[in-house]
């Protein structure tokens, strides 16, 4: 049992194969429109405004609607309308598989129920942080921001499992730590394979994925963690908690902390958090 996406679950259950899942992901990418695109189509936004909001989303922890409304680019009614259109027209994995003929329609409800049961222990609200991390204000922010920003910055979907002892850590070739020092500090270590590290570095930098050396992959993971932790530093500061962001360090021995298994759509990774 592990954290997984519906598509992974279906492969594991022998309902579909990887080729069918890739075809579905391509279809979803083509069909599912972003809020900005819908706003432009409805005449609520200019393309330059939509591009600007999308960029701000990558930098801050505000969603599209918050940024658009705060800047006066969209009214509440207009936002509600484009969100409703997105929800109405959104294609999900199961529906897309049915549409492509990879899954019989009458099997979908049963498989979704089984998937929910399988994944119930990994839902965020059920995640229990250990006594040490439970007292740390940065830890839940990191766990919340990591998948959101991974999707925004790298267009890689991510799910995070429940905390495990350090002895459960899987070994991967890349290990990068970014610490937030201070009275309520936290060290954040991402360990991952080359597939995920390369994808992350290419997405963060916009550089060609094939020209990234090992050195640049390490840097890319560090930059990604910097953005996550930089946002956490800013959020904590608003709550009156001051922590300092430290530069990324590589391949530091892990002697303590809590391991969170991470499931990503490309590659493999784990996160280790330790209160400082």
């Amino acid at each position, binding site marked *: 049992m592990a954290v997984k996406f519906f598509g992974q679950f279906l492969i594991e259950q022998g309902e579909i194969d990887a080729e069918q899942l890739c075809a579905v992901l391509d279809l979803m990418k083509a069909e599912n429109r972003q809020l900005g695109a819908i706003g432009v189509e409805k005449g609520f936004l200019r393309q330059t405004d939509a591009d600007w909001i999308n*960029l701000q989303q990558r930098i801050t922890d505000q969603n599209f609607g918050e940024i658009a409304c705060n800047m006066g680019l969209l009214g509440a009614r207009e936002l509600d309308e484009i969100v409703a259109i997105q929800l109405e027209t959104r294609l999900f994995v199961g529906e897309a598989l049915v549409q492509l003929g990879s899954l019989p329609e009458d099997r979908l409800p049963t498989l979704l129920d089984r998937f929910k049961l399988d994944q119930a222990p990994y839902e965020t609200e059920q995640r229990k942080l250990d006594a040490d991390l439970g007292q740390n204000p940065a830890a839940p922010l990191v766990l919340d921001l990591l998948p959101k920003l991974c999707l925004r910055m790298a267009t890689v979907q991510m799910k995070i499992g429940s905390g495990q002892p350090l002895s459960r850590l899987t070994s991967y070739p890349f290990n990068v730590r970014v610490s937030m020092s201070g009275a309520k500090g936290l060290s954040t270590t991402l360990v991952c394979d080359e597939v995920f590290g390369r994808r992350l*570095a290419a997405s*963060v*930098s916009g550089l060609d994925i094939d020209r990234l050396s090992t050195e640049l992959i390490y840097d890319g993971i560090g*930059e990604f963690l910097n*953005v996550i932790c*930089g946002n956490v*530093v800013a959020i904590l500061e608003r709550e009156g908690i001051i922590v300092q962001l430290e*530069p990324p360090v590589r391949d530091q021995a892990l002697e303590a902390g809590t391991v969170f298994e991470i499931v990503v759509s490309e590659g493999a990774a784990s996160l280790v958090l330790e209160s400082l």
Partner: protein
Amino acid sequence: MTNSKSLSVVLIDDSALVLAQLEELIEQIDGVEVVATANDGTGAIRVVRDHTPDLAIMDIVMPQMDGLAALRVINHNFPTTRVAMLSSVAGSASKAEEAFRLGAIQVIGKPFDARILESLFESERAWHDSKDSQD
């Protein structure tokens, strides 16, 4: 704008990836030349001293001497070089305020894209043109 002289720029970041990204983006922008790079605050002071560029684009969080400490020295000793900070802690009001207080002309959040840089260079060219016409 095409009549403006080329902007000379130095880039300072401890990440080789960010330097490569900046160089690649700037390569595609007319009228801007990267004359040197460095990977910490001490290196920043050295490249500014050696090249007296129009503009330095510098990270805040770096090992050894950080960007804010380097900014203080550069602004005091090399006032003709203007400095834009580039950082993942740009969302921190205290860091951004400190950078502006020390003389930064802009504090850009990471991740960034070409349009942010184009806008920075455009305003810098305008500033230099205006200054040249006053001199």
